[in-house]
């Protein structure tokens, strides 16, 4: 039953319900949670990248002022059940197995050595300084070369080496044919540097174990309360029913806060041991050093192309640095492989990958975790264009797929249904006067000013196209009509900046027939919300669809029930403006509050009629689909200082039907800012002994509002694929495609110097080295 619903809220840039409390400082972040009798945890962390713990003496710390508990790794491990932490849980990774705190040895600077709980965080930190640890240093494994060197000890003994996964080359299409038909082969090594999530709110939790009921209540910042609960109950050996995870406001995550961390488990165990609430808030040093980092890959690429600019095939060898305590990284190569051809008619691909472990922070999910494929491909397209002396825009137009024409499937097997990258390029061509820019660029060069334009395109599985044997998952939702007539929505989504309280309410209000203000979205409590998590650009389709399906089911139930109260035919009833009425008889209207209270009174409904105005439903993603688009940057490079100024940034994108354009624009802008940061500012730097060099904001440079240009955004008309649900996620796209966009623009600006860019990170000194103004050191 697909019924036309009047849309009052969907599509409108309605103000976010979250904002009043957040902007007035009245939000509830983990650190705002204060429980009676609460005490505080601090961790002693490793100063070495790789060392065995020869001895550890906590006697002084135990006696220090205000100290309630000190655990070494071994002491804590005796209280736990071994198993995965963080993303390792979802990845069902078997090896390596590791402990909560380090027991035998430390594996990165910032590794967890001991936990101290004291009456205040200050006292806990003072006591960590009294723990005497003797380390015997081991050769650090901090680079790819060191990881491949068999004379270095394995970081994790059960892996036997420092190679986590190594695949055989996978061939798709006629690779040899493509390369033999090619007029040219481009051979380059392209790399992404390590950078990281850096949410404004660091990780943290408050664990509160009640010895009387043997229940654990844990407040934490996370992306999904149930995943979190599985880790906590699993490692603590507790019945999941006795663990309740609660989460209110989350100050960003970008993939970092998925799954219970080692710190979370240690804090929960400490609370259980003490029978007291224990708080731990990661500080910025810990966050930058040890919470997790992302994106360290290098690609040897061969690209086969013709004189005419057709890109025939790619051969790619990837090495990814998973850091220590790997979780996600092992799962990424297959995603990168399958996404590499993207929306282009690239008919052949050979892909081989190796994932190594090193003595660095764990490689975690970061907004578009597979984004390396976009960087590599969009760089290669520009490089090919430069080799041929062609406009990169034209090479894109020539190679991009056309809707309704072959190929409709990537050579790696992923359907391209509904992909509108071609349309986004066309739109960009209308918004940016490319020939005009080339004239301006030439005039500027004559004055010694170096302007450049760059573009890049991407697609984002949001949630991905429906394909046989590849279900999109199941998004559960529950709705009920409260006694006051308000619609209560229970979702497993765990918003951490995505505005679900607003967007889910918009969808549900339209479908159910109530005012936006009369919808309340409940999230973040494992005792009451259905399973789920927020990540992977899935929620627009999955939660949007679940909201439609569940509101529809509840509406049917309310109408059915009301038909008894109003003594009318269900088919003649409707819900509008918060009231049920017989079509054409406005006087018959009964408000939803009246309905909700009537069904609660005995005798108002006939025997056997279910008066519980509650439904549970689930959505399978319908036809699914892609988001995608093209970004364009115009930059000026100061060739005397190497500093880059972004003059203009234009986005054309298609995420289907917009639930809330203001929210979509916010997601795009945030992602672009992170992408600009990655290229110009952000790098998680280590020396070759695994010492972490960027542990404060003096060294790890985040872009500020002063560094981000105005971002112009143009939304494309969607291609409806599904009778009901055509919202698609947009969370990751900005971050995925901004880095190649900026790099392409910089390379274009520096064309007079013949500069070619193979590395994503371009600080000013690096640019002057590429130009040849200064010598590299």
């Amino acid at each position, binding site marked *: 039953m697909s019924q036309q619903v009047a849309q009052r809220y969907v599509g409108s840039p309605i103000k976010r319900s979250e904002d009043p409390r957040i902007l007035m400082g009245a939000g509830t972040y983990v650190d705002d949670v204060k429980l009676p009798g609460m005490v505080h945890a601090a961790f002693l962390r490793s100063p070495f990248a790789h060392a065995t713990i020869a001895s550890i003496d906590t006697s002084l710390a135990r006696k220090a002022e205000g100290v309630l508990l000190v655990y070494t790794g071994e002491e804590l491990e005796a209280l736990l059940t071994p198993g995965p932490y963080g993303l390792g849980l979802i990845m069902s990774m078997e090896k390596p197995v590791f402990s909560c705190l380090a027991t035998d040895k430390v594996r990165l600077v910032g590794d967890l050595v001991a936990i101290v709980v004291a009456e205040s965080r*200050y006292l806990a*930190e003072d006591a960590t300084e009294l723990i005497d640890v003797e380390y*015997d240093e081991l050769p650090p494994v901090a680079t790819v070369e060191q990881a491949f060197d068999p004379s270095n000890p394995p970081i994790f003994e059960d892996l036997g080496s420092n190679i986590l996964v190594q695949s055989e080359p996978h061939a798709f299409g006629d690779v040899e044919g493509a390369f033999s038909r090619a007029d040219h082969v481009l051979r380059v090594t392209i790399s992404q540097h390590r950078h990281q999530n850096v949410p404004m709110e660091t990780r943290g939790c408050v664990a509160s174990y009640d010895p009387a009921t043997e229940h654990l209540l844990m407040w934490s910042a996370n992306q999904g309360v149930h995943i979190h609960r599985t880790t906590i109950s699993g490692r603590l050996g507790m019945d999941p029913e006795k663990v309740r995870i609660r989460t209110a406001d989350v100050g960003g995550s970008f993939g970092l806060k998925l799954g219970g961390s080692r710190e979370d488990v240690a804090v929960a165990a400490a609370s259980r041991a003490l029978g007291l609430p224990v708080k731990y808030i990661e*500080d910025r040093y810990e966050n930058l050093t040890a919470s997790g980092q992302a994106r360290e890959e290098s690609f040897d690429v061969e690209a086969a192309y013709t004189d005419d600019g057709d890109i025939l095939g790619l051969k790619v060898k990837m090495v990814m640095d998973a850091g220590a305590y790997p979780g996600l990284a092992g799962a990424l190569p297959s995603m990168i492989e399958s996404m590499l051809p993207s929306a282009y008619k690239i008919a052949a691909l050979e892909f081989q990958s190796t994932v190594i472990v090193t003595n660095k922070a764990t490689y975690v999910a970061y907004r578009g975790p597979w984004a390396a494929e976009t960087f590599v491909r969009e760089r290669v397209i520009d490089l090919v264009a430069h080799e041929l002396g062609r406009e990169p825009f034209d090479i894109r137009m020539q190679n991009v797929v056309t809707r309704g024409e072959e190929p409709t499937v990537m050579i790696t097997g992923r359907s391209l249904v509904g992909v509108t990258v071609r349309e986004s390029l066309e739109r960009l061509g209308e918004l940016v006067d490319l020939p005009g820019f080339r004239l301006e660029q030439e005039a500027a060069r004559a004055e010694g000013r170096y302007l450049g334009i760059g573009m890049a395109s991407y697609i984002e599985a949001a949630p991905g196209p429906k394909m046989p044997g590849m279900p999109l998952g199941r998004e559960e939702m529950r709705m009920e009509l409260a006694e006051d007539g308000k619609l209560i929505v229970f979702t497993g989504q765990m918003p951490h900046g995505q505005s679900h309280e607003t967007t889910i309410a918009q969808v549900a209000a339209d479908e159910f027939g109530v005012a936006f203000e009369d919808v309340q979205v409940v999230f973040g409590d494992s005792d009451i919300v259905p399973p789920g998590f927020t990540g992977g650009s899935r929620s627009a389709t999955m939660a949007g669809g679940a909201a439609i399906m569940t509101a529809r089911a509840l509406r049917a139930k309310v109408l059915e029930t009301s038909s008894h109260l109003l003594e009318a035919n269900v088919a003649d009833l409707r819900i509008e403006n918060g009231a049920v009425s017989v079509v054409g008889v406005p006087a018959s209207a009964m408000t939803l509050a009246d309905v909700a209270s009537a069904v609660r009174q005995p005798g108002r409904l006939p025997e056997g009629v279910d008066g519980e105005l509650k439904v549970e439903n689930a959505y399978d993603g319908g036809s699914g689909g892609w988001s995608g688009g093209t970004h364009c940057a115009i930059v000026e490079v100061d060739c005397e200082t190497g500093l880059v100024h972004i003059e203009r940034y234009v986005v054309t994108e298609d995420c289907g039907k917009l639930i809330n354009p203001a929210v979509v624009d916010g997601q795009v802008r945030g992602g672009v800012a992170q992408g600009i940061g990655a290229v110009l*500012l952000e790098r998680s730097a280590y020396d070759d002994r695994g010492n972490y*060099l960027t542990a404060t904001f003096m060294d790890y440079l985040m872009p500020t509002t002063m560094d981000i240009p105005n971002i112009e955004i143009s939304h494309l008309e969607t291609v409806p694929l599904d009778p009901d649900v055509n919202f698609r996620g947009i969370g990751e796209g900005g971050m995925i495609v901004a880095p190649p966009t900026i790099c392409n623009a910089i390379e274009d600006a520096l064309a007079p110097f013949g500069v070619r860019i193979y590395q994503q990170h371009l600080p*000013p*000194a690096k640019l002057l080295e590429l130009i040849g103004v200064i*010598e590299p050191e």
Partner: protein
Amino acid sequence: MGERLPLRSRPTPTVHSRSSGDQLKSPPFAYVAPTSVEEALTLLAEHGDEAKLLAGGQSLVPLLALRLASPSALIDLSGVPELDYVRRENDHIAIGAMTRERAVERSEVVREFVPLLSVAMPLIGHLAIRNRGTVGGSAAHADPSAEIPAVAIACDAEVVVRSSARGERTITSDDFFQGFFSTALEPDEALIELRFPVVGPGTGVAFEEATRRHGDFAMVGAAAAVRTEGAHIVEARIVVIGVSDKPVRRREAEQALAGAEPTRAAFEEAAALAADSLTPPSDLHGTSTYRRHLVRVLVRRALESAVQHSQEGG
């Protein structure tokens, strides 16, 4: 700077300096809030070198949080109003140690008589930092990339310091700034005042910086004050920051400009001289070679805009 924490593991020379301090909460300290200079100096004498004066806290508080400084007591000068002033005294402008950077930035007197200080102020961090940060704090902290010490050196400013035991002494900027975070201040002395000579007519000034982001400490900065008469440069002063353990005056370059015509060639020659013989430090934000190159670029740009400024009437 405070002493570094003893590392309780077996120390090795390869350990990165921050790797040992995994906390961001300060160690314990006593806090005292005097209301007069006299009282502050008495407290300072009592506590000796275990104590630190607290001005705007914009440098000291981060050091405490990182446990890179662990004083036993903080003597807070915020409640000492007598150190907050900007006034003209004869041929110099006197600025009290507790004058906020933002107040200096907005001061008409400073704009008119110490224009180089005026143009330097907006380059210090962000507004919120300048609302708290003080002139005395910046000078006493002596960060080699800070603007106020550079201006003091460029202008031949004098630094007035005082202790309860030995009273007051006046030190030239050249002698006051001794190196990386180090000054001529004795442990029992407080910085009281900076004295900037009033500039002569026809002087143009400029402060050019390369920063990775708006508001960051400069990778390299160049301050220039150029006095022109007719078609000639009479006197030029050039100081660069971010290249050594303290701001450095580039006297050879200054001499090359004295009497010269203000042409691009003259500026380039002076800029090359200014960059010559420097061996700046390398760090994550830029190599030594890059910084030396920046000196050349920024000195030239500073000279160009200083001369333009002087020709527009100073």
